[in-house]
């Protein structure tokens, strides 16, 4: 009978992402049977055991040098057939959100998107935001459950001393399994974490007034604490920051430990994208700006005065 939890563990050029450790630790705490991991493509899997995975399934081959839906779906289906888990967890990343529904349709399994909390109630119960975080719902998959989880939902405990048995799986995947081919892979700024996975974010709004000022004020301030720069839609639509930086209902939904909003009013669509941030700092010269109702710390002042001072203080830490 199906039992246990299999964690689809993503890696970035061979380095396992911290979202995988977060999910393995959570899977262990759910107490639903053995926890295993699956890694597709060549990666250093040695740390997975120390977070509680007892088995690591690896699928290797030329077809996995970059992500394609076809090759990964076939690989995961083969590992699921072998491991026979009750639940498969993965990060709600661009990759996870492409892969899990495809896999769900192939296996006839229930898929849950972007869970932010998981419980064991005799079976997996997932809680997830809907209406862009304005409401929550409880989802119960029947049978095999494929669940993507929003990064940073649980945090990562300290690694233990466990180690996992590595089992190589041959999924019989070849280039022919993907009708989509990657022509080019452009990596812009690999040193900066993706917004959806970022631990710290510094965002600027319309009030930043130009792309030059965004680059001169928001980016360096973000860099001073290793944060990812973000923006409101107004700033993006005005061309101050690229589309990929937009936070909110029609941008990225983010979940960092620290979110700093500079000159952002706090429109409902922006709040929808960042309201689950653990700590929110708002800098706005209007004391009545709606963002202050949601901020952990509010600073009523001019961002052009605050930002350089803040950067200096943070760099001095």
């Amino acid at each position: 009978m199906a039992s246990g939890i299999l964690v689809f563990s993503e890696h970035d050029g061979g380095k396992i992402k911290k979202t995988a450790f977060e999910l393995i630790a959570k899977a262990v705490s759910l107490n639903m049977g053995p926890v295993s991991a699956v890694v597709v493509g060549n990666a250093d899997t040695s740390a997975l055991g120390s977070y509680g995975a007892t088995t690591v399934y690896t699928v290797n081959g030329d077809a996995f040098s970059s992500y394609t839906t076809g090759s990964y779906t076939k690989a995961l289906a083969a590992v699921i057939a072998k491991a026979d888990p009750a639940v498969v967890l993965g990060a709600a990343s661009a990759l996870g959100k492409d892969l899990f529904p495809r896999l769900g349709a192939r296996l006839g399994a229930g898929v849950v998107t972007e869970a932010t909390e998981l419980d064991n109630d005799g079976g997996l119960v997932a809680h997830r935001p809907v209406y862009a975080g304005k409401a929550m719902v409880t989802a119960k998959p029947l049978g095999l459950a494929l669940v993507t989880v929003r990064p940073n939902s649980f945090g990562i405990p300290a690694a233990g001393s466990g180690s996992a048995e590595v089992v190589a799986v041959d999924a019989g995947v070849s280039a022919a399994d993907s009708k989509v081919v990657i022509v080019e892979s452009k990596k812009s700024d690999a040193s900066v974490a993706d917004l959806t996975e970022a631990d710290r974010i510094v965002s600027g709004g319309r009030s930043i007034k130009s792309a030059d000022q965004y680059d001169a004020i928001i980016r360096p301030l973000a860099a001073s604490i290793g944060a990812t720069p973000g923006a409101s839609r107004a700033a993006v639509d005005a061309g101050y920051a690229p589309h990929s930086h937009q936070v909110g209902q029609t941008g990225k939904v983010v979940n960092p430990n620290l979110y700093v909003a500079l000159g952002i009013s706090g429109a409902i669509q922006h709040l929808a994208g960042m309201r689950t941030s653990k700590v929110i700092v708002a800098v706005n010269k209007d004391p009545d700006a709606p963002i202050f109702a949601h901020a952990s710390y509010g600073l009523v002042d001019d961002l052009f005065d605050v930002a350089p001072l803040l950067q200096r203080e943070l760099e001095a830490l």
Partner: protein
Amino acid sequence: MKIGVLLKQVPASDSRIKINGDQTGIVTDDIKWEINPYDEFALEAGIQLVEAKTASSLVLISLGGKDAEARIKDGIARGVKAKPEAIRLDDAAFVGSDPLGEARIIAAAVKKAGVVLLLTGKQTIDDDNGQVPAMVAELLDLPQVTFVENLEVSGDSLIAHRAMGSGQVDVVKSPVNAVVTCDKGMNSPRFASLPGIMKAKRAKIAVWSAADLGLEASSVGAGAAVVTEGAYRLPAERPSGKIIEGADAAAKVKELVRLLRDEAKVL
């Protein structure tokens, strides 16, 4: 080549959400409905492809009740130059479908309508599932390209830019017979023109049932669902924060950094 665009009506993005008494969903009384904002990118892309004669025709497909017709008409009005057909998928048997059930219904309609390239939003902003497009692709054995911010179609293939996270953008090539989900940045959706709105008023919207689609009623709807959802509730309120006082910006900034380090412990 026929292009299909999926349209769903959702509460306007600035809606205040209230939960109904038995927690099965939201209170819809005061909701203003709109086309899902991501579907607008798909619609605009479809209209442009027909206007450029890259595609021959456009069909708008919406799974939903009669109340969704105003949104379908909005879509027809915007695409008036592309003379779109419109199909609404509606049957008592569809009620309570989970995303896989919805995908079965939509896949059957896509096939029946003769769609070659299916364009959809990357997700809807009500359920926020983002599952249906990939499921439709799998059920029809078509390639999928999701989260696309740039799309070019030429001949029997397409080139798409998709954001992979961590600043990585993959440029991919796919057969044009595919499912593409659209993200912000792809285009700037147009509004309906007045003549468009007038024409759309008279437009016919076909309604297809489970029988029209050749679907067993038992393969869709609540009975076929492999995920059940319930207990809708509002998210936990954030504890109220504090406004940092200080003689000047420098003093406030110093206090902020102290609080972030010593109280919130995030630095």
